[in-house]
């Protein structure tokens, strides 16, 4: 059965993509890539989301396979974040762990990634910090095992010693909620961790997390909230209009 890719919201589209067999993803790479860009673009435009220089650290290690119920959910969220941040950013760099094979090819190597290997988050985080971007988003389930706790230590020391004014804001985005306390697992207390179930929440969640991380001025928060309210009203109006049309 053919699936109308443009009818799927970004997160569902990403779940669809990462659960396709690799051969199918390779054969349809151009089509899937274009659909993913459009879906991400729709969110970015609707929320008028603009970012400066951004580096994303994206976890596709074995644990991104997710649970049986939420198959490959973490990998799908990483892919969604990748497309969203690239659409919103002026300058964008993606650091996958483990990195994609050199011969991946196609329009977008990330399309062909499979969950695999141990989680070395420390190395890609160091790579991401090197360009001193204004935002580093680490999209990972927080199970950091090569070496264990390495990413948390890198982020803690970076914040304490190398960037105490938080010119590079680091936010940990966790697509998985811990089974014991229903909260996202943190890498370190030194950077905020936000739990995200749906990629379309990412702009709002990231913006709030930036306030937490950067201790931004009150004016900025006012402006941000005003924009969110306007957007919400607009969405409501659009939703009401759609409901009117649906009336018999």
């Amino acid at each position: 059965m053919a699936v109308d890719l443009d009818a799927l919201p970004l997160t569902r589209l990403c779940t669809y993509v990462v659960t396709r067999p690799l051969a199918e993803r390779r054969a349809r790479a151009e089509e899937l890539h274009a659909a993913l860009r459009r879906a991400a673009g729709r969110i970015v435009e609707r929320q008028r989301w603009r970012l400066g220089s951004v580096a994303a650290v994206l976890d596709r290690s074995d644990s991104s396979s997710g649970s049986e119920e939420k198959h490959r959910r973490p990998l799908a969220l990483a892919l969604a974040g990748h497309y969203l941040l690239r659409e919103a950013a002026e300058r964008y760099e993606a650091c996958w762990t483990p990195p994609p094979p050199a011969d991946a090819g196609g329009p977008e190597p990330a399309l062909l990634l499979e969950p695999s290997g141990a989680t070395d988050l420390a190395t890609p985080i160091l790579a991401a910090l090197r360009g001193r971007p204004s935002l580093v988003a680490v999209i990972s389930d927080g199970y950091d095992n090569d070496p264990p706790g390495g990413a948390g230590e890198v982020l803690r020391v970076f914040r304490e010693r190398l960037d105490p004014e938080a010119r590079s804001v680091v936010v940990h985005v966790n697509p998985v909620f811990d089974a014991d306390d229903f909260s996202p697992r943190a890498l370190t207390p030194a950077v905020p961790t936000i739990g995200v179930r749906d990629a379309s929440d990412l702009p709002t969640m990231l913006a709030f997390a930036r306030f937490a991380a950067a201790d931004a001025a009150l004016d900025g928060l006012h402006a941000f909230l005003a924009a969110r309210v306007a957007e919400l009203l607009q969405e409501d109006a659009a939703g009401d209009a759609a409901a009117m049309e649906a009336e018999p």
Partner: protein
Amino acid sequence: MTRPERGKLDARGLRAAPSQVLGAVRLVPLVRDEPLAGLHLYAAPTHADLTVVRLDPRTTYTAYVPHALVAALPGHGQAHASAGTQLVRPRAAPEAVFRVQMTQRLARREGDGLRLLPQHLALEAYLSVGFGGPDVAWPEYSREVLSRGLSPRVERVRRGDAVRGLDDALRVFELYPGQVGVLVFVADAFASAFVTPCPEDYRRLHRTLLEDMYGELLVQYAVLHPDAAALWGRIDGGAVGSLADLADAVAGLRREWGAFAGLMASGLLDAEFDVATAQHLGGFRLQRFLPSFNPHAENHVGEAIVDAAGRLAYLQTFRLSAAQARRGRLLSALVAADWEIAAAAEALGTSREELLARLRNNGLERLLKAHVR
């Protein structure tokens, strides 16, 4: 069953990869550069609440056995292999029927394969130490033990899902390329070893670790030391002035971590065991082994399948609790001394009175007559 021989485990071809830690549980992947050809393992769930195994006409072994393992030569019953991958979930709704499975032996030949009850084979070897009771009616022993031996001999173990954090650790654990086995540590105390012939077998059997048996001690360790690993690997921020310094510090952390030599830390390779061969299959031998019951060391019972050269194709171990090891030590000393209390006491470097007290204190009081002092 052959007579036991003294020996060590032969881990040639196996090496430990960097470990992964979650909470109190550390899993050390064991990797083979070359898979061990000629043998495959898969699990066959038993679906029984209780398994009763007839060991001989007068002796049965009764336990909860979640699955059997089938060791097969190439070409044997491959159709079964996929069925074996399904794990039995704990039942959501209670069933009216209490399922009891009757089995003839703990390990038996089935065509080109060998069916065994993992860990139970080893545990039964432990339970059978001194099981028959004294052959000579020494005056200290109770009438009951002289006529019936130690029957029923009971030991309590826990299932893996009682070890807090093991479930999560197994779920988020990332298989290492070429991984064929794992060492499980709880709060950095060695709990068990599991080795299979090849990576595909391991991948299928990984989750069965949750149904394996673990000692009470490990359940306690997991509760008492939930974050054992957090003691490792902090970076000294004072020495870091640049991102390059930070990268060096991470490399140092990784070296330190990799130096946790799993196989060495387990102490498995140094330990001497009493090894007995239970079955033959092609060029392979199924063995089970008992520790030396040294009170100052960890004591592991286990079973293994080794090839003609003595290399491990399959290994599974169970760590005895300190109390279980003490009972094993006392009973094996009594057996070695033909149950003569004074001789056994001498072999243990203690007095007759002290040995009698130790037997009472270690849950073996029913061996003795009530008035014996």
